[in-house]
């Protein structure tokens, strides 16, 4: 973890209520996909934890949805403004377990961290498949970027307005994969847990106090005892999750 002052290179809307922000500066503390940053915003007491969508050459990209006053404020920030950011938080995804052909499954604003993961897995020579789940066509983002990385991209929409009609689990049927990585809403996690074969990793979201393991604000129970989503997570292994608790 590092406390960095980062400059906003761009901050633009890419889908309804969804924004992409590129930050420039010392982002060297990010060493794994699936990690997050914690942003201090003027006028707000607590920081905003946002997952890293990409991190390369001193540039860090986040994609976030405006869900409250903090993210609304974030969406109004302009190019050139600076932010106080804690960089490189959380355990991130472990790519060493992926096998030859991992499957990435993202739902809505859970998709961004999978982009960085996809790049990393491909650079490690893996044959990656990706399922991107949205509610409807207008909400789709990052599809083109994923298609530039791998030909095996499957889009689902709940209303059928684009790609496969239904949920990410409908796209999983018939796919073969050695391991899976996922990020998205809790109902999607439960559905994936019912559908998926083999092992995988889930990236969780929780309201946080600090973001770096000090306050115990985001604790959860796991098979191996209590874990902090911010420090011991946000990525948990399928086998350690107490499914009856979530």
């Amino acid at each position, binding site marked *: 973890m590092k406390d960095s002052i980062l400059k906003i290179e761009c901050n633009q809307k890419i889908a309804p209520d969804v924004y992409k922000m590129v930050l420039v500066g010392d982002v060297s503390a990010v060493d794994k996909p699936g990690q997050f940053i914690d942003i201090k915003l003027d006028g707000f*007491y607590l920081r905003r934890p946002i997952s890293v969508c990409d991190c390369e050459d001193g540039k860090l990209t986040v994609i976030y949805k405006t869900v409250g006053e903090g993210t609304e404020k974030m969406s109004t920030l302009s190019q050139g403004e600076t932010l106080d950011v804690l960089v490189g938080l959380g355990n991130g995804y472990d790519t060493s377990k992926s096998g030859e052909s991992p499957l990435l499954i993202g739902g809505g604003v859970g998709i961004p961290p999978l982009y960085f993961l996809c790049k990393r897995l491909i650079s490690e020579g893996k044959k990656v498949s990706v399922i991107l789940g949205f509610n409807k066509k207008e909400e789709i983002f990052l599809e083109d970027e994923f298609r530039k990385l791998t030909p095996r991209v499957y889009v689902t929409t709940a209303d059928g307005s684009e790609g496969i009609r239904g949920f990410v689990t409908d796209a999983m049927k018939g796919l073969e994969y050695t391991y899976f990585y996922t990020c998205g809403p809790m109902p999607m996690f439960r559905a994936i847990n019912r559908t998926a074969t083999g092992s995988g990793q889930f990236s969780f979201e929780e309201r*946080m*106090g*600090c973001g770096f393991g000090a306050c115990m604000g985001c*604790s959860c129970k796991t098979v191996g005892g209590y874990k902090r989503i911010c420090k011991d997570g946000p990525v948990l292994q399928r086998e350690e999750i107490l499914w009856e608790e979530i």
Partner: protein
Amino acid sequence: MGRDLKNDRAPDISAELCGIRLDNPVIPASGTFGFGYEFSELYDINILGSFSFKGTTKEKRFGNPTPRIAECAEGMINAVGLQNPGVEDVLLHEIPKLKEVFKKPVMANISGFSVDEYAYTCQRLDAEEQIGWFEVNISCPNVHGGGMSFGTDPSAAAKVTSAVRKVTGKPVIVKLSPNVTDITEIAKACEAAGADGISLVNTLLGMRIDLKTKKPVIANRMGGFSGPAIKPVALRMVYQVYDAVKIPVVGMGGIRSAEDVLEFMMAGASAVEVGAANLVDPYACKKIIESLPGVMEKYNIKSLSEIVGIAHG
């Protein structure tokens, strides 16, 4: 040139708490600093006056369901609920790790659900040489049947204090709740029961409601409100308690700057604790300590000991 060495000397930022000297009065508050080692990855925590470790109970506790955190204007609400691994695990795993990163006397924060549990936890920890003080938390707003229920009744507060007093020779500092009508009554009861110091304030009971779900943000509905927003309330109570007791007072509540430290010491605090600020800025205590001499010079304060309680009378 006849330089006046006395006037050129850097301001004295040392403090004293119950007979133990502190390099400075800044103590991270319990529950915001774990057992120290997360922060030692960021800076050498030996620059601190001391720190109060995570509230420890007899048995292991998971605490409350999530969400446990809500934000407010200039503050936050938490309902962690004394999550901790229990005193045996603290002795076996946490204190050895703490000792590797922190070499000064540490404050052991303890809590319980009965008078016996407080005494038991204190007794189990008492042999640890590095523990300089016990901070007895009778003011946690986030647990039922314990915690704050001891801190809102003078006779219950006195019972806990004297039970802990009997099992340790180390200074016993009782941490009080602001959620009472007259805090001086509780402070006096603790002093009479043998407390060596009083620390205050714990968090104020508060809540927030989510307009979208129309339900409380926090799963436990209510929680402890802390941060700069509560500072005037905390400061007022430190001022009142300083007047009411003869034992030292540790002040806390919304401290985030060296200026805040001076303000609390002027109200009567011998040392201060910094809580929520650590969660927003992990370097908060380091920054406060480093800026203390400069801010003292600005207000022409040569030594912190000269300002403790100076706002009175």
